[in-house]
């Protein structure tokens, strides 16, 4: 049994490497695409700086408050702010060069200050946004809230606009129809603010009054393999793309089996005194070896060029690579067993592979999916492979964390191979 199996493996490897297109598609293309996806999903540039959201601010008010908002936004590390006019902002958003355009209307400073102490009408900030980047709009809105509050309260509690407002508001309150008790309370607050303005040491101590700010700061810690280990998006993208292209390679192996049948080669194979198990085993082993080579080359490149490291268990990583290769190879056998003709098999499996890798989180991490879909994708082998590789690389989980993915992937391999063995058309009329 050994000689025929070795011969089949050798022959399939010779055939694979004799086809330049297969080699390029299996080794070069995944590296190129994984590098691209990795650069997108790395989250930060290589010097650790986050990508900023492009924002254009149009200041039609030119008040102290509006200038404060603009300068606060400009100083924010999450935003790349350009001051401009409304036409330029609208055009830039429309062309997709800017995510959000913020227009501060005339009178915004005065109206927002008044709205802080009374139930008066609140002024409106106009936000022009690119509908394809709605997530960035939400982010900018949150950041602007902080800068608007800071600028408005700073001005109202320490600036000329606040003092003018007090001088105007106190007589209005005294003449208003509210109850004596309410008047007293409100006037007490405003007069305290007035006295605060008159404190000579105030401006000397700090130079200027700070507005209301968010009453906490945030310490962000990316939880990876260790405190000194940064998240490397390439680890995920190379795992995902590696799996995608080895599934394509194995589906192609299945299609090749159908072509072999069409060309009468299976008549020769079946006329020899070799068992069906030997024939499937030979195909399965050669597929698994090619799959392992794809992983080896992909991750080797990622390690050498993008600094991807196996921060978790090396044994677990190797185990997942082997289990995933077996699963992919068995998938190829399944294609050969279920495919009627090479052409139909090629079309159907291309769609199948794309759906599997998409749902398996090979393109984008599965956590961006809705909760129900995250649960559903547990029946997709790619999900287990991708999660397993993530665990063994940047998450730094030990080899024990690979046990479940390995068992599940081998289970899928057994299922695919079993169905293939049962459904394979052995008769060669």
């Amino acid at each position, binding site marked *: 049994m050994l000689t025929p199996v070795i*011969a089949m493996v050798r022959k399939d490897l010779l055939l694979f490497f004799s086809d330049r297109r297969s080699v390029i598609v299996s080794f070069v293309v995944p590296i190129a695409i994984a590098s691209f996806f990795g650069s997108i999903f790395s989250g930060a540039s290589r010097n650790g700086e986050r990508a900023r959201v492009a924002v254009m601010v149009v200041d039609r008010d030119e008040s102290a408050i509006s200038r404060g908002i603009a300068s606060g936004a400009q100083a924010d590390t999450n935003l790349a702010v350009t001051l401009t006019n409304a036409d330029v902002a609208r055009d830039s958003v429309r062309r997709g060069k800017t995510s959000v355009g913020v227009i501060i209307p005339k009178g915004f400073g005065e109206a927002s200050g008044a709205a802080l102490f009374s139930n008066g009408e609140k002024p409106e900030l106009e936000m022009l946004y690119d509908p394809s980047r709605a997530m960035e709009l939400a982010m900018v809105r949150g950041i602007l809230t902080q800068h608007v509050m800071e600028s408005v309260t700073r001005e109202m509690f320490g600036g000329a606009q606040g003092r003018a407002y007090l001088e105007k508001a106190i007589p209005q309150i005294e003449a208003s129809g509210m109850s004596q008790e309410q008047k007293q309370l409100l006037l007490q607050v405003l007069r305290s603010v007035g006295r605060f303005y008159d404190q000579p040491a105030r401006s000397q101590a700090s130079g200027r009054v700070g507005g209301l700010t968010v009453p906490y700061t945030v310490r962000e810690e990316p939880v990876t393999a260790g405190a000194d280990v940064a998240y490397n998006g390439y680890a995920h993208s190379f795992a995902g793309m590696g799996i995608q292209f080895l599934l394509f390679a194995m589906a192609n192996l299945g299609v090749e089996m159908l072509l072999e049948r069409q060309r009468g080669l299976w008549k020769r194979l079946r006329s020899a005194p070799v068992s069906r198990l030997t024939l499937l085993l030979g195909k399965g082993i050669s597929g698994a070896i090619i799959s392992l080579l794809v992983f080896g080359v992909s991750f080797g490149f990622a390690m050498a060029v993008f600094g991807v490291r196996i921060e978790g268990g090396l044994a677990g990583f190797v185990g997942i690579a082997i289990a995933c290769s077996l699963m992919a190879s068995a998938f190829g056998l399944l294609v050969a067993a279920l495919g009627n003709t090479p052409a139909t098999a090629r079309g159907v499996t291309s769609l199948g592979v794309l759906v599997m890798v998409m749902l398996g989180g090979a393109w984008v991490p599965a956590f961006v999916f809705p909760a129900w879909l995250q649960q559903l994708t547990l029946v997709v082998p790619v999900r287990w492979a991708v999660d397993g590789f993530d665990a063994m690389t940047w998450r730094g989980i030990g080899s024990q964390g690979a046990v479940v993915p390995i068992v599940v992937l081998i289970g899928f391999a057994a299922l695919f191979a079993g169905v293939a063995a049962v459904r394979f058309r052995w008769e060669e009329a």
Partner: protein
Amino acid sequence: MAILEAKQLRKSFGQLVAVNEVSLALDAGKLVGLLGPNGAGKTTTVSMIAGLVTPDRGEVLVDGRRLTGDTDPGKRRIGLVPQDVALYEELTARENLRFFGALYNLSGAVLESATAAALALVGLTERARDAVQTFSGGMKRRLNLAAGILHDPDVLLLDEPTVGVDPQSRNAIFDNLELLKQRGKALLYTTHYMEEAERLADRIVVIDHGNVVADDTLDGLQMRLGPAGGGRVNLETVFLTLTGRSLRD
């Protein structure tokens, strides 16, 4: 005793009875021509003998021993030359033969020697290291034959082995088959070309609609179906007399 006997082979696909109670025997050093129109059941018969298709009924015996299962050692004594050029185009002639030889557990020096002998027989020694895709149709057919005889079988099944080849390659194949006969091999040869059967066959089996309609020597057939007053007719006339003139698609 015949090296190979097929006894009452029957195979149906759904309602269609492709082969019905076909029996034939192959003797050492003899070539049996299996003739029949398209769809007569020739290839299905060959496939059952080669173990590619399981008969619904009947059996195949090699030296009186029934062939059973994929790994029956008796299959080593049978070689198949399929109708298609069943070769890996991307591999060289030698790589193809090494692979097919290994399926019969040949390895090492034995495999090398068998490969060299098979290539020499079909006149392709000089092209051993060339990829099959660079070969002409005739060369591919000759290599197809070499792959079938690589493991030195006692019985060789040839399913239309000369389709689409030029006269030179066809003659070369005929010479190869004559040589194999001299070496004591039993050959079963299906063809549509009557002149091939006339030249090569020691015995002719005509099959139609899955049934054997004649099994005799060429002389016997010509005598049996010749004019009433005596004399001979050619094989094509015999064939058309036996199978009719209606078109088979």
